[in-house]
């Protein structure tokens, strides 16, 4: 099942298999956005190293960090960079960690397929649309040529990393539009937008890819999210990095954890593409591997 980047990572794979059969267990938790990548990796890894038992929970980015601080996990997936408070708490708990970049996701802004007027939005327009200001928002408020219809908003739940990222880069100091329908389950957002002509919403690139026939993608500042624009960072500011945070002590003490982490970096690009995210450049993965190797 491993295709694509196999050649690129071929030597590395040999490198990891010098360790031969490894045994042990590895526990991770965290972002639901990152989870599909990890699922694929865990699936393949189970074939490569049957002696290692890997469990990955999906408690969300914050939930994952919470367990990470408690020392319950060897690594933590995140769909946003770690926060100040979390860094502080980890320090207090005496847990050293290393941030590893896995892939990129492009938050995709979409509208109903019937919508024939929105062909582009600027970051400012996005902000105007989404930040709560007490008014009832009409499409015509953004562009007088657009119909005078109320905009219907759909957004990921406030507790998700996805929301958090959008919050950080678009809303900044503001609050999200209060009439927005929020859901932890991105599929329901998809359904909502499909069913409502005046809807707008955003979610992970993967959800757009899976439903591209029934949704209309909105370019931001003229840039559409796709593999190139996301990877290159041209699709800004909604390209976001996906991380895994590895616990240093686990990497040095737990052979299985190190081996799995190495395998993860080696295969992250391939899996990311398979599930609808964007791989990093090969050099970037080399960089991550180097960071990891330093921990051994």
């Amino acid at each position, binding site marked *: 099942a491993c295709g694509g980047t196999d050649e690129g990572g071929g030597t590395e794979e040999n490198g990891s298999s010098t360790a031969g059969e490894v045994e042990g267990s590895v526990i991770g938790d965290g972002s639901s956005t990152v989870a599909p990548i990890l699922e694929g990796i865990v699936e393949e890894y189970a074939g490569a190293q049957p002696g290692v038992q890997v469990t990955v929970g*999906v408690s969300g980015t*914050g939930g994952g960090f919470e367990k990470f601080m408690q020392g319950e996990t060897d690594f933590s997936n995140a769909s946003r960079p770690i926060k100040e408070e979390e860094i502080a*708490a980890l320090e207090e708990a005496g847990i050293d960690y290393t941030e590893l970049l896995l892939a990129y996701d492009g938050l995709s802004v979409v509208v109903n397929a019937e919508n024939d007027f929105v062909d582009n939005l600027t970051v400012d327009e996005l902000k105007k649309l989404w930040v709560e200001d007490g008014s009832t928002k009409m499409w015509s408020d953004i562009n007088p040529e657009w119909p005078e219809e109320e905009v219907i908003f759909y957004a990921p739940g406030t507790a998700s990393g996805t929301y*958090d990222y959008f919050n950080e880069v678009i809303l900044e100091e503001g609050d999200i539009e209060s009439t927005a329908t929020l859901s932890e389950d991105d599929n*329901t957002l998809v359904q909502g937008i499909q069913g409502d002509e005046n809807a707008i919403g955003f979610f992970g690139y993967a959800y757009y890819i899976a439903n591209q026939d029934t949704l209309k993608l909105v370019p931001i500042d003229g840039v559409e999210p796709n593999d190139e624009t996301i990877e290159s960072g041209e699709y800004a500011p909604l390209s976001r990095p996906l991380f895994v945070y590895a616990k240093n002590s686990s990497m040095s003490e737990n052979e299985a954890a190190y081996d799995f982490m190495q395998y993860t970096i080696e295969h992250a690009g391939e899996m990311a593409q398979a599930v609808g995210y964007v791989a990093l450049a090969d050099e970037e993965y080399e960089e991550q591997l180097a960071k990891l190797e330093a921990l051994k």
Partner: protein
Amino acid sequence: MGQSVQEMIAQSKGKKSKKFVEKMIPVLLFLIATVSVLTTIGIMLTLIVETVTFFTRVSFIEFIFGTTWLPFSNLDAQFGILPLIVGTLKITLIAIVVAVPIGISAAIYLSEYATDNVRRVIKPVLEVLAGIPTIVYGFFALTFVTPLLQSIFPEIKIFNAISPGIVVGIMIIPMIASLSEDAMSSVPKSIRDGALAMGSTKFEVAMKITVPAAISGIIASVVLAISRAIGETMIVSLAAGSTPKFDGDFTGSIQTMTAYIVQVSKGDAGYGTTIYYSIYAVGFTLFVFTLVMNILANYVSKRFREEY
């Protein structure tokens, strides 16, 4: 048999260990019985400790009387629980409107009209409804009931209070039907016969004799069903949305207390943040709600118990 049985009994050993067992067993069983009490204490402690921390950051008054629940706000996080309570009550109200008439009607049908064989088939089948995992109901609400409602009433949003309310109602029908049926069938047959022998129709027996005599059981079953609806989690998490609102709108997204706890549990709340503590405060509120409902159920079944 050379010996008489009484002699054998007299010789048989183990009298002493018998006595010891008889003494120890009740102690052991008592300890086991305290597990349920310990559970309650555990729940209270768990909730109270974290809730107290919560109240060092958020004022009690704001929590109880605040009409805005905005925990994730960047500007001004607000923790007024009323919107979550209102959301919970909306779901409960709809569930009751669906479940009480159907549940009690089914109970009357089963206890007064159905033959033994019909009852023996229908009751367990109804109980299957009660055993279906709530997550299954959640998808049913979201992927079947909501679209169905939308095709009739287009103003209904994808997340709303009506669809999950109806489905929670469906889920608690068997609870009401089964418990009410138990209460009605425990009205002695002799009393029913007495009424029939005066020329009553079955309907008159049901309405004038059985239902009044079983009313305490019926009300108790409704109260229990209400507390089940209040505590229902997955259906509302999936189908009711996650917008805490303090208004009377049933057609749009809402959030209940339970859904909030799940949202945070699988979400982004860092340990030690106010949001983290807030789920315990909400959990505690929920606990108080169910406590009140139970005391109510207890009171009702005592107060309205008919003697016979």
